[in-house]
Structure formats: structure tokens, C-alpha cells
């Protein structure tokens, strides 16, 4: 988990230099805590911010993920759609297939319905921003999940901003988890910068979902340390608030706790960091050198799936 958290941090940091990326620096504990420890047949539908780390955690190849951000031929979708938000569905990772927020939450609920109908022992875990939570799609999906008792865990990655809009203005409730009451499902608040706490809360909800207990709404409170886009100035964030949250850095927090309990020391951290950095930089380098997609990838004849295609779920 520490390695994953570090990878998430380095990944997000490194992309923070990329034009038009939406980094999740400071929010990695929500991503890792939410998606760590699921079984192979489970689906995830990560929020776009942090989606690369989520897909990596579920077994995606780092180079191919990064190639997707650049739109290279080695991307999972061959460069056909934005690799920063569109994830490898063949790995049961539901990303965005358009620029529209909220749909992925609806798809997650649908995948959970499939799990239930197929009698599969699987669950779906989905994250979404607090800004996204105000979309009708999220309301309808939560209510559908509740009314059909679906095996899905819905987690609000509340980083307190949606572009320049403070959650104080967009949400008058104390917590997005308060909305659970309106769907008659458990609502849980968890400290989003504590990866262990997030993970525990999610796993409790996963266990409930797996055993037929239906959905849970979790709010993991964190903070958008990055700009909305890479390089954006965040003048609209209160400096004191920002400092406070930077002090609650989730990576350092985990590292300190691991060190305190003797499971890790400075040298151990450095070793993992070195390994992570070299894995990442190797992947970035390869992805950058990968060719752009061939013209045929435009796929004028590939808008519709043919009969008996290979994408059928086993």
C-alpha cells in the first residue's frame, strides 16, 4: 500500500507538468484506500482525478496508461480517446467515455446490477468528486442502487473544490455522506488523507455489499493541493486553509505511522521511492517514444462492434 501511495504521488506529480492534466496530488489516499484489496472480478469506476493511479493499482500497465495521456498507439484504446480520463475497461476499470462527469457513477451502478443478476460474488467501487455529486445522474444512480440493493460502494472524493468553486458554496450540507439518509443507505464520513481509515471504511462497505447488504455512500474528505489543471494558480484557495491541508499530507502521514510502528524506516522509504521513480520514469520514457496511432486507428469502419467480437465478457 505504501508503494502504491508513493507511486500515485509520483505519477500525479510527474503529470502535473503535462498540459491539461488534472493532478490528484494530495488526494492519493482516497484513490489507494478505495481501490486497494478488491478481488479480480470486481469492477471499479474511479473519479477522473486519480484515475491513472487507480487503474495502475488494478493491474494496468504503466507505460500503456501514460501512452494514453499522450495519445500514443500503445495506449489501451490506441489513442482514440483521452487516456487521462478513459481507462482500460478490459481490466474492469470504468473510466469516462466522454467529457461528461457523472456518467461513470451511473455505469458503476449498472455494472453492480450485472453482478447481482449474474449471481457473481463481486462488487463495484466508484469514486466521484464533491462537485460531481450535484449532478442529477449521481442522485438517480444512488437511488437506483438503493432501491435495487445493489453491490456497489459510492465514495465522494471531496477535495473541497470543483474548478474554482468552493464546496462551501456548492454544498450546504455538512457532508456529502448526509445524502445517504435520503436513500435509506448507510452514510459514512472518513478522513480522506488517512489511507488506512479510507481503506477500512471502504472494506467494511465492500463486505456489506458482497453479502447482499446493498450500497454505502462514503465521503472521504481531502483537499485539492494541485490546481484544477496542471500549472493552474489557485489564488482562490485560502492560503491558511491550504497550508493546513498540506500539513496533513497523506503520504507523509502513512510514512510516519509506518516508521512509528517500526515497519519502515527512512532508508526503506528512500528505497521504495527510488524503485517507484525508476519504474515511472522508464514507463514515461517508453510512452513518449511510442509511435502515434496509425491512420487506420481512425476506424471509419469500427464505429460498430461486429458480431461475435472479442470484447464479450466471459
Amino acid at each position: 500500500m505504501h508503494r502504491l501511495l508513493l507511486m500515485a504521488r509520483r505519477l500525479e506529480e510527474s503529470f502535473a507538468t503535462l498540459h491539461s492534466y488534472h493532478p490528484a496530488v494530495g488526494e492519493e489516499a482516497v484513490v489507494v484506500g478505495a481501490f486497494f484489496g478488491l478481488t479480480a472480478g470486481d469492477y471499479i469506476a474511479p473519479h477522473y482525478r486519480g484515475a491513472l493511479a487507480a487503474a495502475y493499482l488494478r493491474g494496468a500497465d504503466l507505460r500503456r496508461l501514460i501512452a494514453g495521456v499522450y495519445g500514443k498507439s500503445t495506449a489501451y484504446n490506441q489513442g482514440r480517446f483521452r487516456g487521462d480520463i478513459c481507462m482500460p475497461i478490459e481490466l474492469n476499470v470504468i473510466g469516462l467515455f466522454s467529457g461528461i462527469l457523472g456518467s461513470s457513477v451511473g455505469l458503476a451502478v449498472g455494472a453492480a446490477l450485472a453482478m447481482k443478476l449474474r449471481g457473481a460474488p463481486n462488487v463495484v467501487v466508484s469514486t466521484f468528486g464533491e462537485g460531481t455529486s450535484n449532478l442529477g445522474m449521481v442522485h438517480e444512480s444512488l437511488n437506483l442502487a438503493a432501491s435495487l440493493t445493489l453491490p456497489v460502494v459510492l465514495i465522494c472524493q471531496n477535495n473541497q473544490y470543483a474548478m474554482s468553486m468552493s464546496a462551501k458554496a456548492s454544498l450546504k450540507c455538512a457532508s456529502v455522506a448526509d445524502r445517504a439518509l435520503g436513500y435509506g443507505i448507510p452514510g459514512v464520513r472518513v478522513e480522506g488523507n488517512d489511507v488506512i481509515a479510507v481503506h477500512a471504511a471502504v472494506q467494511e462497505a465492500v463486505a456489506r455489499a458482497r453479502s447482499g447488504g446493498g450500497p454505502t455512500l462514503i465521503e472521504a474528505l481531502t483537499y485539492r493541493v494541485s490546481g484544477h489543471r496542471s500549472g493552474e494558480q489557485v489564488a482562490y484557495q485560502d492560503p491558511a486553509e491550504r497550508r493546513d491541508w498540506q500539513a496533513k499530507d497523506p503520504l507523509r502521514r502513512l510514512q510516519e505511522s509506518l516508521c512509528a510502528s517500526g515497519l519502515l524506516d527512512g532508508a526503506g522509504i528512500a528505497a521504495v521511492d527510488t524503485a517507484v521513480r525508476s519504474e515511472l520514469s522508464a514507463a514515461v520514457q517508453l510512452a513518449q517514444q511510442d509511435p502515434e496511432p496509425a491512420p487506420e486507428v481512425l476506424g471509419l469502419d469500427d464505429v460498430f462492434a461486429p458480431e461475435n467480437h472479442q470484447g464479450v465478457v466471459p
Partner: protein
Amino acid sequence: MTRLTYQQALVAAIRGEMARDPRVFHMGQDVGATSDGVMNSCKGLAAEFGAGRVIDLPISEAGTVAAGIGAAVAGMRPIVQIMFGEFLSLVMAPLACDAGTIWYRSGGKRSVPMVVRTLFGTGPHRGHPEDFHGWLCSVPGLKVAMPATPRDAKGLMAAAIRDENPVVFFEHMGLYHSVREEVPEEELITPFGVADVKRAGKDITLVAVGLMVQVALRAAAALAKEGIDVEVLDMRTPVPLDKAALVGSVSKTGRLLTLSETWRIGDSMAEAVAVVAEELGGARKIPISRVACAHVPRPFAHNLDKLALPNEAKVIAAAKALLSR
């Protein structure tokens, strides 16, 4: 063969496919055993397949379509009922931007074998006549079916359910319980993208879908008495559009008349006109005319509704005008 109504033929196709493939299920508002679907659109399905496979849902159209997509991506083959075509306006984001793009944007890794079925057209209850089918035709990745007969209702529905792609299936309320036709009891699969020449003719090509095919046929019969020989083409599936049949017919007749129950702009008939104009307009003079719903929000009062909608007389007048050009 049995004589079936359009509604019975649709339900027969769904029953057949649900029996054949356990991945097929049906969801929507009022589709379950207590109601059997608006206008009996799901008659007997819940009794036969149970509430587990015929699922009643809250009023949440957009969430429902998104859930259908998610279920499809995860290995099921959902049939999603959006009660009325008017409500397609609530689901364009998941339909056009997700369902239509997933095969392409996943690089061919997962498809969305989902049927969205919806009632439309002026029917016995009035209300909700809009279809907006042109919106669906305009974006890549969605197929669209608008059967005109019980036989096609059955064959196209079965084909839609077996299709690996999202299909929006329009069921005309005015045809639902009114027409009966011999329909084979056994499996019937009507391929998409193949127009049906309902009547051969040499003077004018008259193109329509859904209920308008019947209006076209009546008008053609009347015109025949006056010596005007109209070829009536039922496009059946606006996407894929059978361009070859369309262009072939107009090549022969030299004239095109299209008939839309909806507004004239941006619907599948407008596309038929554009295709013909592109393909043939440079080679010869082609008189072309569109008969369509009056370009006003669909009116309610019975007489206004009748004034707004195309009918036999309007088609006959337009055909004659085309010939005198």
C-alpha cells in the same frame, strides 16, 4: 403463422430472446407484473421470467440508461424501456456520449449490447408523440429502428437484442394495437439496414418509416387510380440507412418525396434527401419534396393535431406538385 398485433409481435420477440439467452433482461418504469408495461408493452414478461429479469425502476431515465450501459459493459444484454420517446431528451448524455462511444473509445474492448425501447407517435392516449430520432441518427455509434408492421416489429426487435451495439427501438403507439399481420411463430430475424419496397412504382419514390408507411401506401393507392405510379420504400432502420435501396429507387423514378411524422429538420428523412441530392443531384434534375409535421411544438387540440400531422391528402398533393414541376 399467427395473426399478431404490433404489440404482440414485439413482446413475442422479447420473450423469445429472453428464453434463449439468460443475459437478456428487461428494465424500466411500470414494466413489472403489476402493470405489464404501458400499453401492454411487457405483457406477460414478468409472469414468465420473474421480477429478477423484468425489473421495475423508479423514475430516473438518465440513471436507467447509464445503468443499462454499465450492465451491458459487464456482460449482460439489457432491454431498457424509456416509457416515451419524448423522454429521450433526458438521456442524450449517456446514450450519445457513452453508449455510442464505448466500443470505439475502448479500442474495441467492450461493446454495449443494449436495446432502448420507447413508445412514440400519436396514439390512443394522445400525449408524448415526440420521437427526436434525428438526434440519435446524427451521432456515430447508435443504431435506430422504427418498424412499420407487426412482422418487422418482431424481426427487428429480435435482431436488435442480438446486436452487439446500442439500438434505440421506436414503437409507434398508433400501430400498437391497431394492425394485425401474419407473423411466423418461430424465430424471425430481420436484418438492420435493409429497406423494404412496400410497393414498386416508376414515377415517384416515396420514403417513410413507422406509421407514415401506412399513410404512404394509402396515398400511393389513391394516386395509382389517377395513373401515378408511386414506389413506396420503408427504410425500417434509419441507422444504418439503406442508401443503396434509396438511391437505386430514385435513380429509377427520378423523383423523391419523403414523409416525416416529426419535424422536417434533421430527421432521418432529411438525411435521405441529402443522400439523394449528393448522389444523384449532379447527374440529373431530381424534383424533391418533404412532407412533414408542421414546424410547431406538437399541438394538443384534436383538430390542431390533425392539421399539424401529415396525411394522405397532403402526400397526394405533394406528389402531384412534384410531377408538375
